[in-house]
């Protein structure tokens, strides 16, 4: 599928802020030009834009605006060709036992607690209950995905960017980011490596997928000898060619599209406007 994506974020500040330092994760980590046909990232006020690859191989742009400014605009546009990793069916048949011998250092961080995902006893209890006597990793992951989707309420504006898994467990509601953190916590509690994916979701004609109006998040599970496979607990669906993967990490903290600091009074941001459009690239 060819998708074109436009993502504009505009911060309007109450008073001038300064010393703004930001990191952006907008360019897909897999940026093979045969797949990523076009990419442009614009920042206003204009400043020098540079990049590095972080420890998860995410493509991170960064910039600094030292002078006082009243607005900050970040605009990304791209055309990308997506394919489904499930073209050959679901990767069944890899058993939990295969994880017993431990995983290598590349994968081990995704078994540990992270900033927004703690592995508390009640998470573990729930994970064990959902798993029942399943032995297959992917089948277990599917069961967890459906459980999260069916028992948590999708409720925009009840949580925020820094909502912790503990709160998601307590309130039993949230958005894609919270659903994803919960699913990651459940998987890790069972010793299954799981990571956070930030990206976009294409809501095709007639579809009613949640999370397509903004940047989306879902979860990937690691299958020994096969690799990472995406599952979207917000929509209870496999992450296929409708899902555009941009960045990955242990949780939101590693993969957030925009993160940064600036110097200004408390609650300096008066308004935050976000526009996300994900469209199929066809002729108008």
């Amino acid at each position: 599928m060819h998708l074109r994506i436009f993502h504009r974020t505009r911060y309007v500040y109450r008073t001038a802020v300064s010393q703004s330092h930001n990191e952006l994760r907008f360019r897909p980590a897999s940026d093979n030009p045969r797949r990523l046909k076009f990419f442009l990232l614009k920042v206003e006020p204009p400043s020098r834009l540079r990049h590095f690859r972080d420890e998860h191989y995410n493509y991170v742009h960064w910039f600094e605006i030292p002078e006082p400014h009243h607005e900050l605009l970040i605009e990304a546009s791209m055309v990308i060709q997506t394919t489904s990793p499930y073209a050959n069916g679901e990767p069944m048949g890899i058993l939990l036992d295969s994880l017993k011998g431990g995983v290598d250092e590349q994968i081990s961080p995704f078994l540990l607690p992270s900033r927004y995902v703690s592995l508390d006893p009640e998470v573990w209890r729930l994970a064990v209950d959902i798993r029942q006597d399943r032995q297959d990793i992917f089948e277990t992951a599917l069961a967890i995905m459906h459980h999260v989707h069916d028992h948590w309420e999708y409720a925009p504006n009840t949580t925020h960017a820094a909502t912790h898994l503990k709160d998601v467990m307590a309130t039993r509601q949230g958005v894609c980011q919270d659903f994803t953190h919960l699913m990651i916590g459940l998987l890790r509690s069972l010793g299954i490596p799981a990571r956070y994916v930030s990206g976009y979701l294409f809501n095709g004609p007639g579809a009613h997928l949640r999370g397509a109006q903004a940047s989306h998040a879902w979860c990937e599970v690691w299958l020994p000898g096969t690799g990472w496979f995406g599952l979207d607990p917000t929509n209870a669906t496999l992450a296929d060619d409708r899902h555009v993967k941009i960045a990955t990490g242990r949780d939101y903290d590693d993969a957030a599209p925009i993160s940064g600091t600036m110097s200004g009074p408390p609650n300096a941001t008066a308004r935050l406007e976000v526009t996300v459009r994900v469209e199929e690239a066809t002729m108008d």
Partner: protein
Amino acid sequence: MPVPERGETFLIGPSSAKYRHYLLMPSLFQDYAPESFFDEVFSAPGQVRPHYEAVVQAVDRMTPEEFASKQLGADAAFLKQGVTFTVYGDDQGTERIFPFDLMPRIIPSAEWAHIEAGLIQRITALNLFLHDVYHAQHIINDGTIDRESVETASHFRQAFRGVKVPHNIYVHICGTDLVRDDQGVYHVLEDNGRCPSGASYLLENRQAMKRALPNLLHSLPVRPVDTYGSLLRETLAHLAPPGVIDPVIVVLTPGVFNSAYFEHAYLARQMGVPIVEGRDLIMRGDCVFMRTTKGLVQVHVIYRRIDDDFLDPLVFREDSLLGVPGLVESYRKGCVALANSIGTGVADDKAVYAYVPKMIKYYLDQDPILPNVHTFLGTEEAERSHIVANLDKLVVKAVNESGGYGMLMGPTSTEAERDEFKRRILAHPRNYIAQPVLQLSRHPVFMEDHFEGRHIDLRPYILSGEQTKVLPGGLTRVALRKGSLVVNSSQGGGSKDTWVLWDEEDPSATALPNV
């Protein structure tokens, strides 16, 4: 030289039996020679590039007389409709038709995707550059571009620093000139970020094609260009002051004696907005009003086709009768919007042009998709010596001129002209740059009864409003004089309709974001 056997060495297109039949008839392309240039149509003598096959076959089916009569019909239509322009410093009567060649220039979808991506990247960087040099000047303070190059540009408006413009867009309408070298690689020759003209000719050329060769046009998946009027209107409406739902937009022209008056009137009609002269506008408080038969009407957006210098006698040239006193102050206060903004000429200064690849790297962290033509700067001592020593091999351009004025074509220049330029360059090095003579690509052009190769360029139009859009097409200009590399209309150039094809197989090749 013996005439080659038709159908053998002179094979056009697919070698089907049906097609061979046509080749036995007198051919319009019979003696066409691509020579050593990059020819848009023929990859080698008799070898047609795949995207031109249908057109070459169709044209070749006509006799020279048939084609000539269609060409005459098109010319007559242009004259009748008054599609004309004025040449300054010419006493053969003020208005001329812009010569039109009926054989279209065709750009396949993948090639267009490359051009489009390159143009969007470039105009984004140019707008960021303009925002930066009129505010914090990071790019200068970081030492990426030297202060002198920017601030000595004659179109840099020091007085305009710190002024906030709507949505931080400076160049709303840009016409970027592209040329292809002898390998077919597209280069940016110059950016026209002040008042680029030519869009009306592009639209009229398509109309002429529809009348002259309707079946041919519809036999190929040619992307439409007639959306330009509504795109332009949308781009301008985006600039309206906050809270104005249905803005009043006008086209501000210097008047009927301006070389591009036809275009001003044409675009106003396409958009369905009034065309005004300076004397039709009046200030009341901070706002701009238009005199109408029903009284004063407030104007929110002005598509001005008047240079900065003449815009407002209170700020720029005080002897200007074309502008509106107080307009700039109103713009500063955000009561009216101007397109393009003031001071955009610093971005298309030919010396600043040399730095555009660095701007793209600086603001966008990318390499340029469309390369520049290598440029020697008069301000750099070593480069200046190179220019002066190689005047016979280079093209010398005055940095603030456009339209092919103030230019020296080294290889065809006279000794006296070179001496004159040498004197001028040494006296005012900041005013000149030089570039190697590019062997521009060539395209068959109809000459009375046969086709001959002529050099061409391409001016696409980029509109920056809420989104940046490139009209899928452009004005292909033709240097009609044999061997000439100068395509400017003011220097005896002509034009062609430009067909951008779309590819149903791979829609992404023609569908960029924001388009």
